[in-house]
C-alpha cells in the first residue's frame, strides 16, 4: 500500500503477535521498560493521591468530553469563528493526505525549506515529516526524545517518552553519528551523562530555533468559546516554536476541542498528574489567534478528521476520542510493559492504541489493525488509570466482536474451526464422553518421552506452555464409579 492510501502511518513492524514475540526475546528492552513503567506508575499514584477529589475530576473530564463529542459540529464551528476573529486562519482536513497538502502549501508559500516541530501525535499519525521531506522541506523534531528517534531513523515507542527504549550510551552514539549531518555537531568529547546529552541537544537546536521562520505544533486543547489553543510541555522547545517563528501551523485532531476556556481548570489538573506524574508540567502555553508584537504574526489551525468521524459513528467506540494522550494507560498495562510500544505498530501504542488505532484505520481493513484489540489481558488497569474514564477493556471486547464479524464469510480461520468443533463436542453428553476418552489416550501418547507439546497448528500454543497431562479417568467416569459405591 502506498503512503497515500492509509490514513494512519504504520511503523513498519509486523502485526502485534509476531512483533510482541520478538520483543519478548529482548532482555534489555524488557528491563528498560520495566524500570520506566514502574517508576512512572508509582510516581503517578502519589501525584493523584494528593487530590482527594480525583474521581470527581475524572468524572467532570469525561462528561465534558462527552458533551463535546455529542455536539462536535457546533463546537468546531464555534472554534473556527473564535480563531478567525482573533486573527488566525482555520483549515479543515478530511484525511492525512489533505492535511499534509495544506501544511506543505503553507510552508512553501512562506518560501521556507526548513521547519521546527513540537512533539505532536497528530502529525506523527499522518506521517507529516516524511511528506514534507518529499517536498524538499526539512522538519526538525525539537523534543529531546523525538530528536533522538528522528536522528536515529527510529520509531517512537511511548506517547510521552518516545525514546524510552534507548539507553544513554546508545543516545550518545546517535548524537555523535548524526547531529553533524543536520546542523551543529555533537562535541567530540560527548559523554553519556544525561546532562551532557541534553546540553548537546540544546546547542544543536538553539541555532535552528533562532533562525526558524515556520513552526509546526499539535494542540492539547482548543477552547471553542475563546479560540484559545494550548500546548503543555517540559523542555521549553515548545515555547521556542510557539514564540520565535513568524508563522505557526497547528495540526489538531477535531476531538481536542473543549467547550470553554474555563474547562481548562479540569484538564490542567488531570493531564500533568496523569502523564508526567507532576503537579504541573514545567511549561503550559496558551495563545489566541495572533497578538501584535508577540509571537508568530501568522497562525494557521488545521482541524484534522482522519478517521475520527468514523470512530464517532460507533456509539460503543466513540469515547476513545476522549483520550487526552497522557499515556497513563501504557504505564499500567502488563502487555505494554513486556512488549514495548513498537509492537503495536502505530504511533498510538498500549491500551489506548489498541482501541484507537483500529478505529481510525477501520476494522477489517488490515491484519495490523485487526490484531490490536487482542493485545490485552482485559485486566482493567487502564480503565482505572484513565483520567477521562475511557472504558478501554469494554471497548476491546466490542472491537474483538467487530473483528470476528469482519472475517465472517470466506475461509474460516483455524480458531473459528476449533470453536465450531468445540461447540459440536460440548453440545452432546455422548460426544463429550467420547472426546474425553480420546483426549486421555491422546494426551498420554503425546506425553510419552516427556514431550508436552501438540503437533500441527496447535504447535504455536505449546511453544511457550506445557500441555497438561489429561487425567487417566474423566470426571464423568469417576462419578459413575463413585455413585455405585
Amino acid at each position: 500500500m502506498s503512503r497515500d492510501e492509509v490514513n494512519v502511518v504504520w511503523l513498519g513492524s509486523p502485526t502485534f503477535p509476531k512483533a510482541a514475540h520478538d520483543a519478548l526475546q529482548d532482555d534489555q528492552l524488557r528491563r528498560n521498560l520495566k524500570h520506566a513503567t514502574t517508576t512512572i506508575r508509582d510516581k503517578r499514584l502519589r501525584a493523584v493521591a494528593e487530590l482527594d477529589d480525583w474521581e470527581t475530576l475524572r468524572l467532570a473530564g469525561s462528561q465534558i468530553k462527552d458533551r463535546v463529542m455529542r455536539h462536535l459540529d457546533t463546537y468546531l464551528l464555534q472554534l473556527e469563528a473564535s480563531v478567525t476573529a482573533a486573527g488566525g486562519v482555520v483549515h479543515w482536513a478530511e484525511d492525512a493526505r489533505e492535511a499534509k497538502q495544506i501544511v506543505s502549501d503553507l510552508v512553501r508559500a512562506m518560501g521556507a525549506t526548513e521547519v521546527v516541530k513540537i512533539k505532536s501525535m497528530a502529525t506523527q499519525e499522518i506521517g507529516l515529516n516524511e511528506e514534507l521531506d518529499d517536498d524538499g522541506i526539512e522538519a526538525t523534531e525539537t523534543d529531546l526524545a523525538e530528536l533522538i528517534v528522528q536522528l536515529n531513523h527510529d520509531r517512537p515507542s511511548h506517547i510521552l517518552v518516545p525514546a524510552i527504549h534507548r539507553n544513554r550510551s546508545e543516545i550518545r552514539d546517535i548524537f555523535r553519528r548524526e547531529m553533524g549531518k543536520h546542523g551543529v555537531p555533537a562535541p567530540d568529547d560527548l559523554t553519556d551523562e544525561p546532562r551532557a546529552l541534553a546540553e548537546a541537544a540544546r546547542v544543536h537546536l538553539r541555532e535552528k530555533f533562532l533562525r526558524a521562520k515556520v513552526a509546526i505544533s499539535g494542540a492539547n486543547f482548543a477552547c471553542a468559546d475563546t479560540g484559545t489553543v494550548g500546548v503543555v510541555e517540559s523542555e521549553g522547545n515548545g515555547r521556542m516554536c510557539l514564540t520565535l517563528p513568524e508563522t505557526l501551523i497547528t495540526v489538531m485532531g477535531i476531538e481536542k476541542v473543549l467547550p470553554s476556556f474555563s474547562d481548562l481548570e479540569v484538564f490542567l489538573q488531570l493531564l500533568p498528574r496523569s502523564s508526567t506524574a507532576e503537579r504541573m508540567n514545567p511549561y503550559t502555553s496558551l495563545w489566541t489567534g495572533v497578538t501584535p508584537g508577540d509571537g508568530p504574526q501568522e497562525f494557521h489551525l488545521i482541524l484534522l478528521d482522519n478517521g475520527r468521524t468514523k470512530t464517532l459513528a460507533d456509539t460503543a467506540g466513540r469515547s476513545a476520542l476522549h483520550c487526552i494522550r497522557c499515556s497513563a494507560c501504557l504505564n499500567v498495562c502488563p502487555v505494554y510493559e513486556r512488549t514495548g510500544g513498537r509492537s503495536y505498530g502505530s504511533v498510538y501504542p498500549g491500551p489506548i492504541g489498541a482501541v484507537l488505532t483500529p478505529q481510525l484505520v477501520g476494522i477489517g481493513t488490515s491484519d495490523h489493525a485487526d490484531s490490536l484489540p487482542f493485545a490485552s489481558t482485559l485486566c482493567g488497569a487502564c480503565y482505572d488509570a484513565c483520567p477521562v474514564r475511557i472504558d478501554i477493556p469494554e471497548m476491546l471486547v466490542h472491537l474483538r466482536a467487530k473483528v470476528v464479524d469482519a472475517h465472517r464469510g470466506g475461509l474460516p480461520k483455524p480458531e473459528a474451526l476449533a470453536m465450531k468443533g468445540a461447540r459440536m463436542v460440548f453440545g452432546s453428553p455422548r460426544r463429550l464422553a467420547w472426546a474425553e476418552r480420546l483426549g486421555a489416550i491422546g494426551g498420554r501418547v503425546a506425553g510419552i518421552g516427556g514431550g508436552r507439546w501438540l503437533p500441527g497448528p496447535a504447535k504455536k500454543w505449546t511453544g511457550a506452555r506445557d500441555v497438561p497431562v489429561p487425567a487417566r479417568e474423566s470426571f464423568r467416569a469417576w462419578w459413575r464409579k463413585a455413585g455405585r459405591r
Partner: protein
Amino acid sequence: MSEAKPAEPVREEGLYGEPSANRILARIRSALRDVPNDERPEDVEVTRDYVDSHAVGDIVDLFVERVEDYRATVVRVGEQDAPAEIARVLAGHGVANLVVPPGFPDALLARYEGSRLSDDPPLTPAELDASDGVITLAAQGIALTGTIVLDADAGQGRRALSLVPDLHVCVVRSSQVAADVPVAVRALVPGRPTTFISGPSATSDIELDRVEGVHGPRTLVVVLISG
C-alpha cells in the same frame, strides 16, 4: 453568546472538490444520528463538584515550598528591601546585561548597577540569547502547583523575553498568589498570550533522569515580595 454571529467564512474547495469543512461537518452529523435533534450541548450533564482549591494552610508558604520543589530559587523579601535584594540576586548570577520589559517598575531596579536592554524596539532573538538574563513581573502565582503565570501584561514583556535568556528572575507579589489551578484559571484574561511556568525547563527523556535546562532558562529565581 447571543450577540451577532460572525459571518460564515467563505469556504474554498478542498483537495477532494467540495469544501473540506462541509464534508467533515456532514460526516459528524451523520455519525451523531443517535443524538436527539433537540438536545443542546448544555443538556449533557457536567458535574462540577470538584473543589476549587486543594491548598491547606498559608498559601504563600505553600507557594514557596512548591516552587522550591521544582528546584527553582525563591527569595522572600519585604517591599522596602526588594530593590537591594533584586540587585543582590542579579549580581550573584553575574548579570551585567539585563533585559527589562516595557512597564517594569524602575524602583525595583534602583540598586542594580549593570546595563539594561530595553525591548522597545524589539530585541532580536540573537540579542536576547546574548543577554545575561531577564527580569519580569508575573500575572499570578499558583500555590498548590508552584506555578507562575505570565500573560504579557505591563512589566512582563512578550513571551520570548522570559524564554531565550538563560536566567529568569520573576517578581511575584504575595497578593498575586492564587491557591490552586481552578482559582487561577478563573482569573486569567482569555486572549492574552499566557504561559504557566512551573520550575525551570526540564527533561526526563534519557533513562527518566531529570535534567534541568534544555531550552528555556536553566535558572529561575522567584522574588516574592510580601504585602
